[in-house]
């Protein structure tokens, strides 16, 4: 394939403005959030006093926590960019373009979209970084200069986003079997084996045991390290058990479904529980974090009144600020991820939606079904994750509930806000569904 043909294939066709805008926005949001998070964390790395390692370690933990929802969002953006090519790919195959040629065209387009989106994301980052600089740590604002990344780091992030898009497009091409007639073949539903539950339950039992034993026999630093590891283990268990739990629950929903939207929603989840989990897994992790944060915030409040050292109090306040920022960033990423995934799913099913409109199926039935297919797993996983985290920090949570009931309120509020944000994100794609439905 020569450069002229490639340019022709990559060029957007008339009426595809919306299809290009969605992945562009998604890549832009990913880039802005990555730069903002790294920029915020960078501000701690310039400190060199005795408390600096603690701040840096906490910043690293926050970055690690944000990695999963961030990767989920990045993957969703990349899949969206790759999927919109399906129809044209089929045509190219019919015209005799080799699979390699089709691959090059797809990867090139994804890279271009990602690069354009990432550049827009850099602009977004520059616009919001003054606000990030106003966040107080150690009694004063971080400052704009402190959160601004060096150009080489910005370029590295833009390059990383483009590489992610290229890899995802390449993997997507391998996964999606496109026949020359453009029919995406889906045979059996993807599963989620019960062994996940067994492994997850075992991990929770071990973690619970460690959480009870370690504080009694180890010092403060070891306890913090072990609790951090338990936190990471808890997140891993959630990822392991989540798809299986969704599958088992969706089977129950399917049995009980008496109206079309409930039947459709249950089947959508059962069709690919892992994909359903990917969509809500981020908020589940945020919910898991919220229990930790809520517990921490309430205990910090108790510490305030106990007359602790001023530097310790400052550290405690900053930990609270950091936890809240991490939660907010998680929610933003999950909301963006759900929006992008939904837009992607709608674009995938355009032909089907058109046929449903011809059959006279009300738009509301499909809209309610897809909303339910997100919200039901979301409610299940967010509550389940909160309970899971509650078990892991049971002694601390118990103390917090007794000495500061505000802890429970914080947890409930954070989870409720997260759920509301995802719901809003889902509703925001209703116009896309409506256009897909009514297209002639």
């Amino acid at each position, binding site marked *: 394939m020569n450069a002229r043909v490639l340019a022709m294939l990559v060029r957007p066709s008339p009426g595809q403005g919306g299809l290009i805008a969605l992945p562009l926005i998604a890549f832009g949001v990913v880039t802005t959030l990555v730069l903002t998070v790294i920029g915020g964390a960078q501000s701690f790395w310039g400190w060199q006093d005795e408390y600096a390692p603690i701040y840096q370690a906490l910043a690293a933990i926050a970055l690690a926590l944000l990695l999963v929802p961030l990767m989920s969002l990045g993957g969703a953006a990349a899949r969206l960019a790759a999927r919109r090519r399906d129809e044209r790919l089929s045509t190219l195959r019919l015209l005799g373009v080799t699979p390699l040629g089709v691959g090059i065209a797809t990867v090139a387009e994804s890279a271009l979209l990602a690069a354009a989106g990432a550049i827009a994301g850099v602009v977004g980052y520059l616009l919001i970084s003054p606000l990030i600089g106003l966040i107080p740590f150690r009694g004063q604002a971080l400052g704009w200069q402190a959160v601004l990344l060096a150009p080489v780091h910005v370029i590295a992030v833009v390059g990383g986003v483009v590489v992610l898009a290229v890899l995802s497009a390449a993997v997507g091409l391998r996964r999606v079997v496109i026949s020359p*007639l453009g*029919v995406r*073949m*889906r*045979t*059996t*539903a993807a599963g989620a084996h019960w062994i996940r539950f067994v492994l997850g339950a075992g991990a929770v039992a071990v973690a619970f045991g460690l959480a009870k034993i370690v504080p009694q026999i180890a010092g403060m630093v070891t306890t913090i390290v072990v609790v951090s590891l338990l936190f990471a283990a808890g997140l891993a268990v959630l990822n392991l058990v989540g798809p299986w739990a969704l599958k088992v629950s969706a089977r129950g929903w399917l049995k009980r*479904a*008496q*109206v*079309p939207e409930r*039947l*459709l929603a249950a*089947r*959508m989840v*059962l*069709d690919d529980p892992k994909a359903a989990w990917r969509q809500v897994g981020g908020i589940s992790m945020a919910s898991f974090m919220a229990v930790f944060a809520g517990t921490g915030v309430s205990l910090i409040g108790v510490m305030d009144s106990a007359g602790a050292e001023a530097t310790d109090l400052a550290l405690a306040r900053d930990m609270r600020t950091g936890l809240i920022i991490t939660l907010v960033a998680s929610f933003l990423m999950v909301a963006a991820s759900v929006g992008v995934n939904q837009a992607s799913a709608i674009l995938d099913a355009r*032909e*089907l939606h058109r*046929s*449903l*409109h*011809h*059959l*006279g*199926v*009300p738009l509301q*039935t499909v809209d309610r079904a897809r909303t339910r297919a997100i919200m039901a797993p979301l409610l299940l996983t967010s509550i389940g994750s909160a309970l899971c985290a509650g078990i892991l920090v049971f002694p601390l949570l118990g103390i917090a509930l007794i000495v500061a009931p505000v802890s429970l309120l914080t947890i409930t509020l954070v989870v409720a806000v997260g759920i509301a944000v995802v719901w809003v994100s889902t509703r925001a794609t209703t116009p896309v569904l409506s256009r897909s439905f009514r297209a*002639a």
Partner: protein
Amino acid sequence: MNSPVLVAHALTKSYGATRALAGVDLAIARGESVAIMGASGSGKTTLLHVLAGIITPDSGSVTFHPSAGGAIELTGMGESARSRLRRERLGFVFQQGLLIPELTAVENVALASMINGVKRADAVQHAASWLGALGLAGMEDRRIGELSGGQVQRVAIARAQATGAELVFADEPTGALDSHTSREVMDALLWSTTGQGRTLVVVTHDRDVAARCSRTIAVRDGVVVSTAVDA
């Protein structure tokens, strides 16, 4: 000729400068099978969409005469009323089935009735009986991806019948099938429609398919240029 089930008068429809329908008059009798033929861009799919109330013409009228109740003028109805008419009283079969991939065969068929308010158990039972009648007994719980092209079309035919539609529209129902499977699908389509006293309107490129219908209408440049009664 039996009493008409659908009457179209002076239909016109344009897309920008392109005239898709340029004054079509048509009457379809109850119980007949009508093939609409024409080259690509002749206006045959637009005609089918206007006759089925999917889109409205720029001018002219389409009147549906159900077996029970009074005549219904489609062109004067709003979008939601036409949608309701389509899901309750008309049936559709598309070129590639276009069934919901997440649902099983029987659920795809039952869904149409469930949307109309039928209880799930009753809808599933009725759907299973239609699948059995169309040679798909034992395949009720298969996902659409597990069925062959011909089987998918028979599920689509069952879906079109499950609500008791007395008028079925099919848009290139055999377009993606080989000749042998195409014959089987047409057998199923004709048996389930005209074979039950219902009416079938098929848009097709395939002369063999048209030859199986009781009447063929040729469309060119948005007008009906000929009508032939087949054997």
